[in-house]
């Protein structure tokens, strides 16, 4: 298997809408990226084995799958669970990496990748918001965030408030923190997310979901203040670091 370019499967269909720029971000760092329609994967009955064999990374891009009806990411998660039956934890254990951005993160939460006592709901202010935030990684568990400092990225969502089952919150948070799962926090409070959580990873650190959009900041000219430093116009954006980490990791796995 060595020598080939690591491959990313970028999921598409039913209202996903960031598939192009997500695929582009993976390509920029050296991946081969394939945008595949969920219905095609279902039609060809792509098994977890097949997924692991063909792809190093599964990416669930942002968007409005099923229009956010019945809560964000919900129906997409049901479709993946019932029609493909993928166990993402097993994919990660076999060396796969998973990225869920925004609606993809919401779907990962609904698939209970981060546990069944976590959910995500309407922003505290009750509104969709498009704004740039700062988010700081914590711990070393998350394979996507290794060596990454504070990130400036856009958030663009109406449902980004991460919440925990009230009765189990303290216990759960303690456990997740010990496992390094609470890996990305906002500076400030853009949406009421508990503990300022902007992203989570699974205990392996290989499945990572976040509300901010790293694929939207792969060139410096996407930053809302870049014209004050025109000299950097050709520089890469901070979001690219996540994809570079994934490339290193995937290349390492491929040997």
């Amino acid at each position: 298997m060595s020598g080939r370019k690591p491959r990313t499967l970028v999921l598409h269909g039913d209202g996903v809408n960031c598939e192009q720029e997500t695929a582009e971000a993976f390509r920029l760092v050296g991946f081969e990226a394939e945008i595949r329609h969920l219905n095609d994967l279902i039609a060809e009955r792509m098994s977890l084995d097949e997924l692991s064999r063909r792809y190093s990374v599964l990416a669930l891009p942002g968007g409005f799958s099923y229009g956010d009806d019945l809560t964000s990411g919900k129906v997409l998660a049901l479709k993946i669970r019932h029609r493909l039956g993928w166990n993402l934890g097993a994919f990660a254990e076999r060396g796969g990496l998973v990225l869920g951005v925004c609606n993809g993160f919401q779907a990962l939460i609904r698939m209970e990748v981060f546990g069944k006592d976590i959910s995500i709901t309407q922003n505290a202010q009750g509104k969709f918001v498009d704004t740039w935030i700062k988010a700081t990684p914590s711990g070393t568990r998350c394979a996507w965030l290794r060596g990454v400092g504070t990130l400036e990225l856009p958030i663009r969502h109406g449902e980004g408030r991460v919440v925990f089952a009230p009765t189990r919150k303290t216990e759960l948070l303690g456990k997740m923190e010990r496992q390094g799962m609470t890996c990305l926090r906002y500076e400030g409070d853009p949406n009421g997310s508990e503990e300022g959580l902007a992203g989570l990873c699974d205990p392996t650190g290989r499945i990572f979901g976040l509300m901010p959009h790293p694929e939207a900041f792969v060139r410096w000219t996407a930053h809302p203040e870049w014209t004050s430093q025109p000299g950097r116009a050709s520089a890469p954006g901070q979001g690219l670091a996540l994809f570079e980490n994934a490339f290193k990791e995937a290349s390492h796995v491929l040997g």
Partner: protein
Amino acid sequence: MFARIEVAMRPEFSDPSAAGFLRKVELAHPEIRRKIRWARLLEVYWLELPASREELIPAITEVFWDRVLQWLFTGNLIPKAAGKHGGIADLLEGAPNRPGKFWAIERRFRPGVTDNVGRTAIEALEIVCGKALPEGRAASGSLVVLEGVELDEELLARVARDVLCNELIETWTVLPESELKNNDRFHPERIRRDIPRVKRESAGTSGARVEELPLEGLGDAELESLSQRRLLALSLAEMRAVRDYFRRPDVQAQRRELGLGAPTDVELEVIAQTWSEHCKHKIFGAAVDYSEDSNTGGKAGIPAQGIPARVESLFKATIAGTTQELPKPWLLSVFKDNAGIVAFDAEDAFCIKVETHNTPSALDPYGGALTGIVGVNRDILGCGLGARPIFNTDVFCVGPLDHSRPLPERILHPRRILGGIRQGVEHGGNKSGIPTVNGALVFDERYLGKPLVYCGTGGFLPRTIAGVPCETKEIRPGDRICMVGGRIGKDGIHGATFSSLALDQDSPVSAVQLGDPITQKRLADFLLEARDLGLYRAVTDNGAGGLSSSVGELATLSGGARMDVARARTKYPGLKPYELTVSESQERMTVAVPPERLPVFLALAERRGVEVSDLGEFNRSGRFDIEYEGKPVGSLQLEFLHEGVPRLELKAVWDGGPPEPKAAHDAGGAIFEARGPELLLSLMGRPNIASKEWLIRQYDHEVQGTSVVKPLHTVGAGTPSAMSGPNDAAVLKPKPGSDAGIAVACGINPKLSDLDPYLMAQAAVDEAVRNVLCVGAEFGNEESVLALVDNFCWPDPVSDPAKMAALVRACYGLREAALALSAPLVSGKDSMKNDFRGKLGGDSVVISVPPTLLMTAVARVSDIRRSRTADFKKAGDALYLLGGNRLGLPGSELAQLEHELHSTEAGVVRPGLPDWQEARRIYSWLGGAQGKEQGKLRSLHDVSEGGLLVAIAEGALARGLGAKVTLPADRDPWALAFGEGFHSFVATVSEEDSSALEAEWKAFGVPAFRLGSVTGFEKLEVTWEPGARSWNVPIKQLRLAWQKGGYWE
């Protein structure tokens, strides 16, 4: 089985939807808001499913219940999904005042209204049950639960009507506590009743469902009454032409052959749709006699050049004619398609279209704006061989949000209008994954009757698609007529004819539609895939007029068409043939598919979850034949259908406009000192000027990853001290592998219509062009790509020569400006019936919009790395006014403010007039055709609403900087500080670059005044009459006024 599911947030979590509802109640009825002590908002679902209880309980649990967040109240179905009481009592316990007095308002859709969530619920249940549920039905709604001892049924009814529901599409019920606490509403019989259902009309044979409407022998009065009764919106002359067509022996012979007798309702409806003002633009095609009233008695007229006494067609003379005089090599397709197509580079092209959706938005602001945006998206999908939408723009003109006088019957408060259209564009754009990158908001009393909702979309497409040039639209006989996407219902029947009439209190409900962004997203993804595989030959959208327009228009490409409307998929049974033909149900496109590619096309559609109805075929018959279950129900000659409409003859008389205002006192000094700071602060907070951040941040303006210049630039993003300021235009980078970009901006200035629509149109062009120049657009070379889109929204000019003269003048103003700037018009749309006729307290009222022209400019940016923004960058930078000779107070925001304050106008009262020679010099330098130092500009911002000082304040407030400004001594400080007009910009450059730039400006004839410097103190200091007088205002105050004035909930 039946189920009713109420989904509530657990009391441990805040309920942002309920909070949002309460904020709306506060604005509409503060006195009722004070009586509400607690509120929660529940989602409600009604289900009827052909499955067993055992099968359904786990499925419902999985689909509807988030255990962490929610409780479900289901009667006795799933008691464990609620709290300890197993029902709504659990929720009521969370109210702070106990024992309280509880109420609820339930909201449901009316039958036939699109219910997106209901549709998704069925899909989700199908996924979980692992089988199709074709007989399954699901409806969604909501339940607001409130507590307050002083509430009563009547108060809650007011809340339901004014805040919660739009009664055109929704119904409501107030539930007292007793009903809330009992379980009657979960009873199967009750659920069955509560699921909205379209009543089936007593089915007859299909033949009986086509009505014959004999025209032979009808007199004028009868023809007119028929047109009115059937909502045909056809004039007497048009009705006569229709009658005479059916009289023709060749037509009669042909009809006999087909078994058709008298004209059918299908045929009259098709003619009415095709000939509607909305589709045919009869006013723009009319012959117009134009004259100017010689007795204008001291009135101000702007010298308008070149308006002839007889115009054969305003469209041909001033719109298409203008573009013909500007034959640019990069124009690929203009005026003949859904949108104009322009070359981007050797491989790709872009296209643009801007639509209006005024009438639907007046009735149902949310649905109207939503269908407006997804509708114009389809124009782009159906442009050439199909383009991918890459940005949306939105411009709203509404009444003042603080309007507090009684409203005429059936008019919604501007706050509800704006709230609804904002949300419609949010859902339409965000859910489709298309960034909303540019827009404007205009407030004026005269938009109370009809708001203007402009929705624009830009698209991107390869110049060659499957071996064919992208602008090709070709159909061969035998190609299949395929309707793709949504199904047909009664929604939107008569949309096109209806928007061609004035709005009144009896306007029909069926004209309202709701959009479904997800069905459309699937449709769009599918079509672009099919396009690249070369599976179809031509495509167009189903918008106004439905199949009648889309197939009727495409039929001209092959020379005829035959379709069987019974083959179209419908939302529910019982639609009549004419309804199938003209319904404007959303999310549909019509595609011409070569028969040999049909199987592949159908297979791909099925895999993408997109429905296709194969309706018939294109042919060369010269006719548009419509059948129902194989039996002809209509047959019209294409030539008559498309060319047979009698031409309008209109009169236009210009009376010179309002009298020229006179200055009441000397320009200057003392008053400027006394009132300047206070007026500047007031201006910053004026809704037309104030921050639009509230609106902008609820739109995704960055999806697709192409954003370079955003609607706002932000300093310190993600920190508590984040500051945002406005940008003039958006810049996008549409291709990952290229640093070329697209700039898009708009210009709109209806206030100037009161002065002269000629000037208004020129100002709109100038502003749109200046805005794209600000961010770095090319200008001035033959290959510079700069194109314009015009959107006229007018009060009905048909029988009003003054309004018609206003239209003529605006068209010629537009023409002069576009020619002078060498900017061709590539697309446009007009809406000519923007009047409301209704009743206010028993009296008749008419509210007409001011003549309003929106200009949208799109331009290429050679290298996005050299894009500019409007914010001042650094203390110590030199501050310049570029242009600046063409500013005036009449028609300015200051003049309007003074008028509202009833204070005498100060300053020299002379309107700013354009000088296109000067404009070309300035713009050619900015656009890179002259000189080489443009890259040294650190910021550039146009001087528009509010004038120079407002522009400077906007540049300073985004970065916590200030400015020290000295107004030139030889100029009237009022006109310079607050005047609006043409060709002017505020620029900053570093002090060390200033001499190089000044030399270049001098060399290229760019007027430039050194105003002063950017400072590090948050203060705007203004000096005039050199050294003699000055005042200053803290930037923080200006920023606060700007932000506060622009926050609307």
